[in-house]
């Protein structure tokens, strides 16, 4: 009878029976309780997020790593370190280690961004906010390093301006993503770190002028706005709506090719695999050779970088080829 009531079938036979009629009426009423309407979820966004998350291969299932299953909890905790080690061993050791300390403008800087990207992908959800704020802090440090290089004459004003603009753009993304990722449970540590970043940027702003100063002030404003946003969030409790977190796998690099084969091209240690969908602008696959100045746009998938578009840059357009290589942070806009 309960099943029939749930399926809105005819209960009249039970209702006519003197013994079963009270139960039939009760079940009928229970089945007709008006249901509350709920806010429609963004199921497509969640679907994409899930597919993105499950596309990362699980370390503990791959080959020889399976023998380390007893250490899975530790592997999870140190996923970032493990990923970094894998990259370090898969590339030339010296340059990879150096990349982690590199500053924007150096040829090996893209590797640092790729390592960060992978570290973020492998981090548990509750650690992402802390990582993003660490990356924002890295960018603030790099702004200072670039300004020092400019003052010592290692970088021209034009190069400095380009590099600072790209670094500030990354800093803004990371700072915003950190606040978004910590949205449900804002932490004092994030606010404190944002204050640190603001102080570093203030110091950098004082040392700079012109377009560079404008760019640094933009970053400063973002850090201060996010700091205020997180405080507002704490005051408002959990009901404040936060924008969805969208993982961005895009990666960019610019500079002279250091090697080119039928299947891949490299700028320094940043290697991009060629696919049948790779587009070539002002050049073709067979014309790619070491020394060619290019802009490469790519996507990171399964911890590998795939070139989606390679644009040859003519020397006349850029007197001093910008060695700046920039990897967009895999974060929310």
């Amino acid at each position, binding site marked *: 009878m309960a099943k029939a009531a749930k399926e809105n079938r005819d209960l009249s036979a039970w209702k006519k029976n003197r013994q079963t009629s009270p139960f039939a009426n009760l079940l009928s009423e229970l089945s007709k309780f008006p*249901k509350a309407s709920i806010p429609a979820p963004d199921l497509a966004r*969640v679907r994409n997020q899930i597919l993105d998350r499950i596309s990362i291969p699980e370390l503990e299932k791959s080959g020889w790593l399976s023998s380390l299953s007893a250490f899975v909890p530790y592997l999870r905790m140190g996923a970032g370190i493990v990923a970094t080690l894998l990259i370090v061993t898969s590339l030339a050791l010296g340059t990879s280690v150096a990349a982690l300390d590199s500053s924007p403008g150096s040829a090996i800087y893209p590797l640092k961004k790729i390592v960060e990207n992978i570290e973020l992908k492998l981090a548990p959800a509750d650690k992402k906010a802390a990582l993003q704020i660490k990356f924002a802090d890295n960018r603030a440090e790099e702004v200072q390093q670039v300004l020092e290089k400019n003052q010592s004459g290692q970088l021209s004003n034009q190069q400095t301006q380009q590099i600072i603009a790209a670094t500030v753009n990354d800093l803004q993304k990371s700072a915003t993503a950190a606040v978004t990722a910590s*949205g449900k449970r804002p932490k004092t540590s994030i606010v404190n770190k944002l204050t640190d970043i603001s102080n570093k940027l203030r110091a950098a702003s004082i040392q700079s002028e012109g377009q560079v100063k404008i760019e640094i002030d933009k970053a400063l404003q973002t850090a201060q706005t996010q700091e205020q946003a997180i405080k507002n969030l704490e005051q408002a409790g959990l009901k404040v709506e936060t924008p969805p977190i969208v993982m961005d796998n895009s990666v960019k690099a610019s500079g002279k090719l250091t090697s080119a084969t039928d299947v891949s091209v490299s700028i320094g240690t940043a290697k991009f695999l060629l696919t049948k969908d790779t587009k070539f602008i002002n050049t073709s696959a067979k014309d790619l050779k070491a020394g060619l100045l290019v802009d490469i746009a790519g996507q990171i998938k399964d911890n590998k970088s795939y070139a989606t578009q390679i644009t040859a840059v003519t020397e006349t357009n850029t007197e001093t080829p910008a060695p700046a290589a920039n990897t967009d942070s895999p974060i929310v806009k």
Partner: protein
Amino acid sequence: MTEAELKEILKQAQSGDSEAFARIYDHFSVKVYRFIYFRVGHKEVAEDILSDTFVKSWRKINQVNSPTALSAWLYQIAKNNIIDYYRLKKETVNLADVQDFLEDEADPIDQTNLGFEQRKILQVLGSLPEDQQQVIKYKFFEDLSNDEISYIMGKTEGTIRVLQHRAIIRLKELLTKKNGD
């Protein structure tokens, strides 16, 4: 989706086909989202828990033996994720008390459109033992099957049927008594 189709898709997902798994998500996401939403009362939080639920289920998909157990199994993972959410939110709360601590719970019933008899049912429902109340709420307010309820409550399906039977008998007695007053 028929049981045969679901069986085939489950088999594909278990062999590592993420597109097949996406079809499982398409099929169950709305129901699982509703279940989560009623327990956390917040759209974005419910979406995050939904995402975690399916990511965890992908990693353990080989544990599912049959397509009929799939939805109940998903509810069980969702329930564990909801408990984790409250445990993280209230770090000082004893883990054993977490299940009784759903402070952001949303009401699955539209209270403004209740009928006269339905209001009386709600009034007496609170007098039932906790597990009987839960079964009635899951079964009639959230449209869950006995199989799903058994996974969520960690009891056998037979126990759920017994609880439901006793709850209805008791509700009927309480309503008769109330109408007689």
